[in-house]
């Protein structure tokens, strides 16, 4: 039965390829096709995640250590659930949004394929499999980034490919090292460097390898100084920015780093070494840097992209604390940030779709004109800032608590960065909120926003649904945190 696991991976890829061939002329038919594929895949992936008995399936075996193998554990479930559910939400959103972007057939076929590839990353059981799908993800999402096919889009696309491939190749160095020194390449909580005799004397080399992996896989998580592709990739259609560049792709980077740190190298060989400090300091720098860049960026989507840069490093910082609490903090923020940021991007997309306005200055008085949209934006912004009792505060609390508990001075410095970043987050998000609800007196808002209205249900329902989710589970986050804690305890 364990072969079922490959269905959520290859079914969307096949269906995406089929869509390229079918090339529907009617929008309605295509929407039904894509929606049913995505929903079916969501259901399958969730059901299989919880029911497949053996929980491991080898597709191809090259050598003893190198194989393409899939399995499900706690971490895959978390990543898989986040992606599957948000994918469906984003699908409905993009049905409406893509109407004005054109080339829908191509878009949706790659969009569907990417779903499978991300599931592949989530379900991979060893480093080689993950590496394969990690590279595939770059390729599958490239057409989505370059969708507009103008000069800006292709430049952004090239940047994305160059950064990602280079990053992954650095990650490959780490994989080679692990192959040499580890007992296998499988993901085992606690690491695979259990053969003390083999490891002894090569710790520094392995730490160098870890740094390669951290920055290599960190490219997708937009670690400083490899963050540049993410704001540039904002030229992609908004559903792509929302789903891939706030959730799927960037979280794949976070996911890969947690796999490498907690399941391959293991934290024992890294904790307290220079490698941990280098990684942690890079994350701390990115936290503040991303937020301050967001503040000076006037383009809504790029501002949100820089905000993502900063928030991804909250997770990286938390993971780099290298304690179970750190893993819990990172996973919690991964979930909460995904929900909040995808909604913020949906709002930005709704604004661009309805009005074509892309800059913060142009949003004066939108609170009246787009009440539902701006309400979603306000609540999710406050969540992201970390105003209790909304979502963000819980994850920030867990991260900071993990940092304080580990007692490391660098980690404590990270809390200062978190707080500085929270101030900056408030500034860059509240600027938009204040403009929307309290416009300047010297402009005629009614005239300016004459034709501005909330978008239709395909767009507002995803936004408001996610906002409601963020309120409810912001107030009651315990079920998720319990799951994350059992993962970090190595139980799930």
């Amino acid at each position, binding site marked *: 039965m364990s072969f079922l696991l490959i269905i959520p991976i290859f079914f969307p890829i096949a269906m995406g390829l089929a869509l390229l061939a079918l090339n529907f002329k009617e929008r309605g038919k295509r929407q039904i096709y894509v929606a049913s594929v995505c929903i079916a895949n969501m259901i399958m992936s969730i059901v299989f995640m919880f029911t497949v008995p053996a929980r491991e399936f080898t597709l191809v075996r090259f050598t003893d250590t190198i194989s393409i193998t899939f399995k499900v554990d706690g971490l895959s479930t978390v990543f898989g659930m986040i992606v599957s559910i948000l994918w469906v939400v984003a699908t409905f959103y993009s049905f409406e949004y893509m109407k004005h972007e054109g080339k829908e057939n191509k878009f949706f076929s790659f969009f569907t394929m990417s779903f499978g590839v991300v599931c592949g990353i989530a379900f991979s059981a060893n480093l080689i499999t993950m590496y394969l799908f990690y590279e595939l993800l770059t390729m599958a999402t490239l057409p989505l980034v370059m969708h507009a096919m103008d000069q800006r889009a292709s*430049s952004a696309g*090239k940047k994305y490919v160059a950064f990602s491939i*280079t990053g992954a190749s*650095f990650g490959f160095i780490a994989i*080679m090292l692990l192959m040499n020194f580890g007992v296998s390449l499988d993901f085992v909580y606690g690491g695979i460097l259990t053969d003390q005799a083999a490891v002894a004397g090569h710790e520094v080399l392995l730490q160098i390898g870890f740094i390669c992996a951290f920055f290599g896989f960190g490219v997708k998580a937009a670690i400083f100084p490899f963050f540049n592709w993410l704001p*540039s990739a904002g030229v992609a259609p908004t559903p792509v920015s929302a789903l891939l560049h706030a959730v799927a792709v960037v979280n794949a980077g976070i996911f890969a780093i947690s796999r490498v740190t907690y399941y391959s190298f293991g934290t024992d060989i890294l904790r307290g070494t220079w490698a941990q400090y280098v990684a942690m300091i890079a994350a701390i720098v990115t936290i503040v840097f991303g937020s*301050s860049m967001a503040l000076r960026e006037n383009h809504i989507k790029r501002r949100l992209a820089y905000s993502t840069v900063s928030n991804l490093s909250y997770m990286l910082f938390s993971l780099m604390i290298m304690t179970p609490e750190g893993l819990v903090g990172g996973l919690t923020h991964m979930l909460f940030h995904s929900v909040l940021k995808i909604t913020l991007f949906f709002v930005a997309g709704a604004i661009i779709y309805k009005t074509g306005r892309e800059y913060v200055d142009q949003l004066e008085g939108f609170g009246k004109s787009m009440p539902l949209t701006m309400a979603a934006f306000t609540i999710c912004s406050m969540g992201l800032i970390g105003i209790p009792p909304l979502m963000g505060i819980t994850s920030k609390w867990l991260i900071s608590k993990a940092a*304080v*508990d580990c007692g490391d001075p660098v980690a404590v410095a990270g809390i200062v960065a978190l*707080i500085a970043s929270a101030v900056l987050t408030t500034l860059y998000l509240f600027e938009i909120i204040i403009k929307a609800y309290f416009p300047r007196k010297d402009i005629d808002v009614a005239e300016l926003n004459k034709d501005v209205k909330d978008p239709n249900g395909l767009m507002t329902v995803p936004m408001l649904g996610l906002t409601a989710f963020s309120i409810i589970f912001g107030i009651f986050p315990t079920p998720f945190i319990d799951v994350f804690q059992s993962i970090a305890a190595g139980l799930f």
Partner: protein
Amino acid sequence: MLEGNGLLMFLVFFPFAAGLVSYLIGRNSKRARDIFVIVVTAAELAAAIFLIASASDTNDFHWHAFAGLGVHLRGDGFRTIMAILAGFIWFFTTIISIEYFKKTESRNRNRYYMFALWTLGATMGIFLSSHLYTTFIFFEVMSFTSYILVIHKETDDVIDASKSYVGFAVFGGLATLMGLFMLQANLGTLEMDALIPAIESTGISEVTLVWACALVLVGFGVKAGMFPLHTWLPQSYPAAPEPGTALLSAILSKAGIFGMFVITGQILLHHFSWGLALTLFGIATALLGGIMGILSDNFKKTIACSSMSQIGFIIVGVGMQAVLGHHNALAVRGSILHLVNHSLIKLALFMVAAVIFMNLKSFNLNDIRGFGRKKPALMFTTGFAILGVIGVPLWNGYVSKTLIHESIVEYIEIAEHTGWAYGFKAIEVLFIIAGGMTCCYMLKLFFAVFVEKNNDPAKQAQFDANKHYMSVPVTVILIISAAILPVIGAIPNITADGIADVAQHFLHGHSPEHAVHYFSWVNISGTLKSLGGGVAAYLVIVRLGMLRKQSDGKKAYVNAWPEELDLEKKVYRPALLTVLPFIGALFARSVASIVDWFTAFVGKIIFLKRPERFQPPLNNEFGTFNEEEKESKIPQGISYSLIMFGAGVVAVLYFIIISFISGWR
């Protein structure tokens, strides 16, 4: 999941639900909404009073799942008193706000009432909290919901003031959060009861503890308006509509004081240096508020600065609690009572301000001069409130100020013959001076509004003819709010001591060994000194300094406060908006240019033979090389990707070669 006294949950969460309902009602019927809001606040007041009766069964309420760490509320003596105070003030300000908004700006009332109710819920959450994280959650909620109250008028000045409000609120909230992290990490708990035992059992270093508490204090100090975190206060209090200001001054500032009580009574119990620092901050706040109050020509700003000054007195009381250690009965009771008294007095004064504004739409003393003549109800309320706040015997402010003053004197006696005695002697003198200032600016207001005539006789005639300046319900609540004051002040051994007896356990206070003789000659003479100084200051500063002859030969009030002497505009804003971004940008640019240099260097080597010209990328406005000219040295296109790819390949090859040479495996 939910356990304990449901009344506590009702007090905190009902206003949140009711706020939403009021918004929905208000979309259909404004009248129904007004009635609904009054009923809700009345229900809150009733529930708070009922807490006294229900508290005997179970005092606590837990909601474990709420926001990760759970909510823990408690309804013991002090907290019940604070809840009743909040309910009472909300009820009264809601009644007056309905008339106020009808007569002034009636836009966005729905929004105002919704956020006012949410703020009520959050404030109840703070006052009833028994776990510091609960306090923090509701403190943050309160900061942001009250922001809508501040920005209500939406003029450009107001938006500017509200930016400073929200800026300080965020900064303070995060500093508090940082402090709470430190406490949680070191003590392992934030449960208020468990803090002192945890400090003893964990043996936390004193330096860490004081630092953590100082950070926690920042947030609460901001809300209380403590020097040097006060600069938002003289801007934001006048910016809000008067019913909102009444809430800010009478209740929200007390949330800050509540936090100080928690630190002083539940964490740094009897800590001398902590108390000394708070006392000094308190005295500075009291003096600065007093000076700003005297020099302003604006009715509302004067009362706003008065709030700051009176809060300074309370902070002195909090500081003296810690300084006096186990003998702090007077300071504990004095600060609790001054907190209660100040809330009641400021409620009355800001309601008077609301009445003035809804008739005249101005607060400039020259515009409103003479408005109060022949208006006995208004004069009664203002007069009683002023007698209360300046501390005339038989009114309530006298009792609490005397207690705080006595606590300073007590320490001078304890510390006799040591250096501290002289230091506290100086603090005592400053305390009396600050009390004199209260008298001075309040006399200024009273004479300007109720005694002097307006410079424009036509206007004065209009004022005198205006008999329907407020409705009957407003008259009733104004008179009630003023009539309470002497009830506390004239029979202090029953009323004031009663409140203090119930509340003091929160601060680990004890009843004094003998009943305090409030009206003994020693205490009265101290007050008389202060009042005498105040009258003299009024005659000299206000009559001679601030009433200047205008071109038409008549005397008018001038604003004597040097506007350029603004801590926020001179120090805080430049520091935040100029210096920090500069440092940040310098840092970011340096690092970014290292990366740029590296890429450009590699590019130079690889494309040595064929230097290509590229358009600069559109989105890439950061980094060193874009500044120079239209020619980017970062190669674009697939070649660039190849470089990066090549770098990866080279690294892999290097690794393989090294591993081959060194012969692993």
